[in-house]
């Protein structure tokens, strides 16, 4: 049995069991390993992807619930101007230490700036608080968001 999944603009017939959380299909079946598993509990944000433009944690919800939706992972974030800008801003501000939370933060920032091009401090906090960074790169991530919004 297979279901149809649209990821990064391409439609795939995937054969993972329908109850498989999206992240395992992305990583293991489609080989898109940029999305990271941090908790499997929707508590840390490492696994964030875009679903129809909204940030969604991919570590719990079953793949079958994503049929007919547009999924964007970190691998194709740079397909939009905003995504590219966000990636560049993260590089320019060195907004990472170990880098494990980075993909999720880039995805979340891209979604934020897509809906709110000039976010105030509260919107930034609200968008990023679901994401844990244990290395303490927060100040740089906040600068990266600011920089990407300025451009």
């Amino acid at each position: 049995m297979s279901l149809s999944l649209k990821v990064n603009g391409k439609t795939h017939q995937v054969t993972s069991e329908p109850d498989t959380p999206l992240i395992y299909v992305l990583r293991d079946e489609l080989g898109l390993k940029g999305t990271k598993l941090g908790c499997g509990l929707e508590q840390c944000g490492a696994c964030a992807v875009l679903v129809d433009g909204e940030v969604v944690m991919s570590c719990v919800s079953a793949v079958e619930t994503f049929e007919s939706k547009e999924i964007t992972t970190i691998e194709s974030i740079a397909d939009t101007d905003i995504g590219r800008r966000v990636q560049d801003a993260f590089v320019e501000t060195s907004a990472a230490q170990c880098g494990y939370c980075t993909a999720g933060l880039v995805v979340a920032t891209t979604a934020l700036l897509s809906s709110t091009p000039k976010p105030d401090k509260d919107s930034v906090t609200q968008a990023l608080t679901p994401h844990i960074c244990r290395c303490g790169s927060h100040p740089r991530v906040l600068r990266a968001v600011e920089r990407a919004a300025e451009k």
Partner: protein
Amino acid sequence: MSLQSYPLISDWITVRDGCLLVHTGKVDIGQRISTALVQIAHEELTVSWERISIAPVRTGHAPDEGITSGSNSIEQSGHALRCAATTLRDRLIALAASQHGGDSSDWQLSDGVLQLKGTNHRIDLIDLIPSLAADTPIELDHLPAPRSTLPHPKMRGLRDMVKGTYAFIHDLDRPGMLHARVVRPPHAKAVLKDITADTVAKLEQANFSIVRDGSFLAIAGAQEWPVIKAATKLANACDWDLQGGLPEDDVFAKLSLENAQRFLVVDATPTDADIPEPDPSPDHAARFERPYQMHGSLAPSAALAHWTDNKLTLHSHSQGIYPLRESIADSFGLETEHVEITHVPGSGCYGHSGADDAAFEACLVARALPDTPILLKWTREDEHAWEPYAPAMAVDLAANVTDGKVTAYSADVFSDTHRGRPRPGPNRTGPARLLANHFRADPIGPIPASPNLGRHAGMHRNLEPIYNFPKSRLVKNLVRDLPLRTSAMRCLGAAVNILALESFMDEIARQQSVSPIAFRRSHLDDPRALAVLSELERQIETRPDLADGVGRGIAYAQYKNQMTRVGVCVELTVNDHAEVQLLEALIVADAGRIVDADGLTAQLEGGFLQGASWVLYEQVDWDRDGIQSRDWDSYPVIRFDNVPNIKVQLLDQPDMPSVGAGEASPGPTMAAIANALFEATGLRMRRMPFTAEAIMQKATTL
């Protein structure tokens, strides 16, 4: 140690495919050591960044530099590499002169090219390296290249991180690879009695492999999600003998004299000398406490193991591949050379996380399923409940004060061991410190902790005050047999010792009606410490007046009293829910000659936020049924909603040695927060973490 063991230039720098290859035993754990090493090679040899790479850190190939810990990488690997590079540079210049004429001083080096002044004679430095004898020793008397501006190298790997293409251990894949998960006992004392045979049979029919060795139980299969589901089924089929459960001791009550093995600490080193009685009626006395805390890596630990013939090939994010190799070889009775470990990055670890334990567990599964690559991953719950924690600690301080100065000081620090890493030692220390060995049918360990008698080691790191107190009495109190397994976490004892001393200094300064900076200054004569405090004071003077309800606190420390000097100022307020809101932070630091200004700043900021997280949020909870802190809800940490504006000021010392800074800021950060909290509320918080609940409870005792 790095230079003594690896005294040749070619131990650290070789040439491959027209590029410089830098060799190191230190590994990237988010602290940017590889960026700093490439920068050092670039500074001394002027070769462009694109032509310098770092060799894989693999046993049998990389220098054995022990463990990447203790903020030592810059002073060990960095120093060795700088000496190798300066020797290489001067030797190559001399070689060019002898081969092509001119005096050494007539040759100029820039952009990796040697040029004879006034001629067009140019030699690519990298091309010349093979002409130098392979056994050319490193000499220590070559001067580092002068520099005028702060270096800002680009962080290695960063572009891949933002693109999602940076390879972590979890992303490894091999043909025929199986995914594996461990089925955990409810807690560390439980023993596996039985597994429902029917469940085992069904899982095996479905092509899952079940590996059992005593109470160690794991399951492997071709696809990750089905393995996770099968692991749950297997867990539900297990019958555990709970052995009475975990002890529900009040760990702070246990951290006391009657339970301790005691050592008088002299010159930051534990000794057998008699411990003098403390002054029975000091002018000031206070006890500071930290609960068990966890490293809490964002990524659960993982490893890839492959057992073929009698050889074990392992990929791990361990901080110490050589000691891990010996510990694993000893566990299996293998020759050390038959185990090869390659470091692959995991997420930030902040000390001894589950990395080594996961690596050994992958090996156990791989041994049972030979010729099959095994990628074993811990779950979030595994990492939270089974990593070795930072020990609970207590520090009892006392002081006498005369004419505004501390005249006598006493500190008793209490803790279980900070030394739980697998490394060779008596009673098969290495195997005994690998978690799974405790559960095997023929168990190895755990063994009782032995006191760490090194200088500034373990719980007594930064126990010695940085201040000029005429008399001090410092005592290390090792308490064993506490409920939870412990090991090394970022800063070891220093974070709590600095919290205690710097809170205590604040209390005494206030009682003396002296400003906290002036009070510290009056007990210091190190000009670099005074410069840090002056800069901090200058920065504070530029701050606007404090709003109502905002408190400001400062603290100062020098890591191990010999590494990076850091002054921290924090402004915070406490909201209506009694939650601490961090508003502003200033960090002033002197780390000697700066190698990577941005990387240094990142370490100081990161240390600030981890220290803030420890002091405000983090505490491991448990009861007789096991660890209760099993996810990020039951073990909250700092998030983006409590990040202050942080300003970092670096005091560069181009002519002084570079020192490590990865653990320099958490201690003074915790103390500055405690001191600011006192100014904001009048509450002197002495037991971490300063949660809303703890603050409200403290307020009711006023």
